[in-house]
Structure formats: structure tokens, C-alpha cells
């Protein structure tokens, strides 16, 4: 049945060229095509500088593609979309706003009613374990807590698509594993569609339904891996032979293992 429906996200021959004054243009993305089904979590895995972040920013409408098709939710994406949520590598919280006001920032920008959103913001904060910190300032929180606030902010307007750019890259390993479980938990509760950029093979396999492995620049899809490990996934999943096999396959696509 699924194959008859149009996919939620459709990327076809996406190509990106950066013009550089006085130099030959830089081809960031050669050609990337894949489909994204609603409710799926897809990871874009690749070495640093390979163009995966550029691809995510094109999908977010933050930068323009040079050619190709980027269709999400039946819209050609050419500019930022109000029904997308975005999480960056840095929390990017506003130091002058309290935690709650930071989470409500998208609502304020879009001019929606604060009342109902405020209740939702409190729910999200309790979901990520930050109840009681609503009126704290970001500087009073640890890095992991700040990134959890950023996650709540991205989810507060119930986005159709959650875009995450190496969201846990700046965190220490234990906090990162905690955040990965938190993301899976939230995703199970909100059934959000998620596209996540990472350079960690284990993170990609642990979180995703699908892993799009990017080649070094100019980016192509080196491998498109369906991760058929059942959800909910637990930290023990990381030691299952199927998990290791998938990690190994991702490593081969990256040219790290043979």
C-alpha cells in the first residue's frame, strides 16, 4: 500500500554548486536522490565536509539548490517552511530568554496563540526531564540540558518534519547516548518525520529507519541502508550482531572498513 502513496519527501538529482569569486565553482553535492516516507527517521551519514549539512540546509529551505527536485509534503521547498522544526549542532538559545520563552520563540515569531502553546511547551519540557527549569536562563544549564531545550523549541509548533544538524555532536558520549534514547522516545510519542545529519556510524544505525551514506565531496549516495532492527531500541541493541553488521556495512560504504 505504501508504495502507491506519494512519499512524504522526494529528492531527485539534487545538485549544489558554490560559486567562488576568482576560482572554479565548488561542487558540494554531485547528485543525490532518495525518498523519505512519513514517520520515518532517516540519517545522512558521511565524512566531514562531504555536503550532508548542505543537503540538510537545502531541505530546510535555508539555501537554494542549483538543480534537481526537493519536494516535501507536496511542496517544492525553496524557502524556509514554518511547519519544519530545526535543531542545530549548537543549542542556539537566546541568553536573554528563560527556558520557557526560548521554547515559545517559534510560536511568538509565527504570531500564534501563546496560551495553548505554553501548555505544550511545559509538556515537552517535562518529557525531556526539564520540569522546574522553565524560568531558568540558558547560562544556568549544562550543554546537554541546553540541547534538550533546543529540541523542545523545534517540536513546539508540532512540525511536519524535524531537521537535525549533528544535534548531539557537541555533547560528551554519555550525554549523547542519553539524548539518542530521548529522541527515539519523543519520536515514538509524536510520530514525527526526522532527517538527521551525523558522522557517527553507530548513531546513524541506532536511531534510523534508513541511513543514506554520503560519499566524500562532491556528495553522492554511496549506500542506502534499511535498518530493520525493531523499535523500541535499547542500549543493549548496540551489541547485537545485526547492529554490528549494519555498522560494518555503513563503514564499508564510507570506505573505512573493507
Amino acid at each position: 500500500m505504501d508504495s502507491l502513496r506519494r512519499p512524504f519527501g522526494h529528492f531527485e538529482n539534487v545538485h549544489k554548486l558554490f560559486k567562488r569569486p576568482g576560482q572554479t565553482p565548488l561542487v558540494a553535492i554531485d547528485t543525490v536522490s532518495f525518498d523519505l516516507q512519513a514517520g520515518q527517521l532517516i540519517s545522512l551519514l558521511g565524512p566531514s565536509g562531504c555536503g550532508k549539512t548542505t543537503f540538510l540546509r537545502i531541505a530546510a529551505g535555508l539555501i537554494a539548490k542549483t538543480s534537481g527536485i526537493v519536494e516535501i509534503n507536496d511542496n517544492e521547498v525553496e524557502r524556509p517552511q514554518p511547519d519544519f522544526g530545526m535543531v542545530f549542532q549548537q543549542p542556539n538559545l537566546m541568553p536573554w530568554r528563560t527556558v520557557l520563552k526560548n521554547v515559545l520563540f517559534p510560536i511568538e515569531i509565527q504570531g500564534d496563540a501563546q496560551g495553548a502553546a505554553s501548555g505544550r511547551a511545559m509538556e515537552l519540557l517535562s518529557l525531556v526531564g526539564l520540569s522546574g527549569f522553565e524560568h531558568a536562563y540558558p547560562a544556568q544549564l549544562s550543554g546537554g540540558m541546553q540541547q534538550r531545550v533546543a529540541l523542545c523549541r523545534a517540536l513546539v509548533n508540532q512540525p511536519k518534519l524535524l531537521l537535525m544538524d549533528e544535534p548531539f555532536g557537541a555533547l560528551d558520549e554519555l550525554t549523547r547516548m542519553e539524548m539518542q534514547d530521548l529522541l527515539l522516545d519523543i519520536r515514538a510519542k509524536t510520530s514525527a518525520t526526522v532527517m538527521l545529519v551525523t558522522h557517527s556510524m553507530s548513531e546513524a544505525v541506532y536511531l534510523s529507519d534508513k541511513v543514506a551514506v554520503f560519499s566524500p565531496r562532491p556528495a553522492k549516495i554511496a549506500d542506502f541502508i534499511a535498518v530493520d532492527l525493531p523499535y523500541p531500541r535499547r542500549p543493549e541493541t548496540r551489541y547485537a550482531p545485526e547492529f554490528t553488521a549494519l555498522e560494518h556495512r555503513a563503514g564499508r560504504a564510507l570506505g573505512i572498513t573493507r
Partner: protein
Amino acid sequence: MNSENLGRLIYPLLGVAVIVAIWQLYTSWSGISPLVLPSPLEIASVSVKRYDLLLQQTWPTLIETVLGFALALLIGIPLAVFVANSRLCNLVLYPILVATQSIPKVAIAPIILVWFGLGISSKLALAFLVAFFPIVVDTATGLKATPTGLLDLAHALCASPRQVFFKVQIPAALPFIFAGSKVAITLAVIGAVIGEFVGSVTGLGNLVLSANSQLDGPLAWAALVWLSVLGILLFAAVALAERLMMPWEHAGQN
């Protein structure tokens, strides 16, 4: 009051006390004329005895300083917005700003006096002239230093340019605006006094001049002390405004 706050109060006072004590000892032992250097006790006693006159002369200086400073904010901040947001404005205005700033204010004070007369407006103009440069430079720096991550976020949320300006750029620039304002308010006092020195009939600067010409050393020094206290209080007022407007800067760390 915890011990750290107590220390922040005691150590500066201790420094002042030591200098005043040495000064007092020197004047009483050396027998130096009070016209040349009055003792701290003499200055203190004049400050108290003639406090009517001193207070009366403080008002004009205070008003000139505060109005000049307010005008500097009113003109300086919008100017900084143009300089920060438009490359053309930056190229056209910045050299002019720097050029006007490098003219010694003492040297143009007589001209200002010719333009604006002996009244309050010439002092206000001088206070404005010295105060507005740090405000423009710091505000423009602050506006340009808005973290790109926050601009990205606002862009991704489809924020309008107006929203970006008021909800992101201005709050992000506030620490810079206050840093410039603290420099500006102390400079504004100096600007007002320069104006009073060059031509006036009132103000603490005028009192210093007239007391000096009447060989009343202690009164001239008392006026100087009042001037510096005025400067300190105005600086403290700006610092207090900063604290109230930026509560996040002083919220306890985790």
C-alpha cells in the same frame, strides 16, 4: 551581604582612605598653603558648610550631562543601526565619525559657544559630542556581532526582518550598548564641564573657575570632589539600568 560583596565594597574604600590619609598628613606637616593644596578635612568642611551653593551649582551640570547623554543615545543608536546594516552607510559615515571624533573637543568648544550661546544648549552640545562616539561604535559592533546561529534560527522560522532586528539583534547587542553607555556617561560629564569652562555663569565647572580666581582653594577642590561624585553616581545609575534590563547576566550559574 556575603563576604565577596563586602570585599567589593571594602577594598576600594580602603584604597581611597589610604590616599586621603597620606594627603591629610602631608598637608598638616608640610604647612603648604590651602590655595595650592587644601587638606581633605578643609575640603570636607567646605563641602558641608557651603553645600547649598554646591548643590545649587550641581543641578545645571547634572542636567547638561544627562540631556547630552540622552541625546547621544537617541541619535547614536539609530546611526549605529544604519552603519551596522548598510555597507554604503558604513563606508560613507564611518570616516566622518572618526574624523569628528579626532577633533579635540576643547578646541571646538569656543565655536560651539558662538553657535549655541552661553546657555545650557552649548554645554549640552559638547556633552553630546563626546558621548555619542562610544555609543555609535559599541552599538554597531554589537549589532554586527549577533551570533550567526541565532540569525540562522530566526531565518529557519521565517522571521521577518523587523522581528530579527527587535527580537534577535537588539537584545544580542544590549551588552555592547551598555558598555558604550558607561564610557559615554563619564565622558558626558567632561563635555559639560568643558562647556562651562569656556563660557557659562552656572555649574560646578564654572564654580571651580570662579573659586580659583577668588583664591578660594578649598571651595575649588570641593567643587572638584562634587564633580567626581556626580560622575560616579551617573556611572552607577547606568550600571543599575544595565542590571535591571539584563537580568540574565547576573542570574546565578549552575
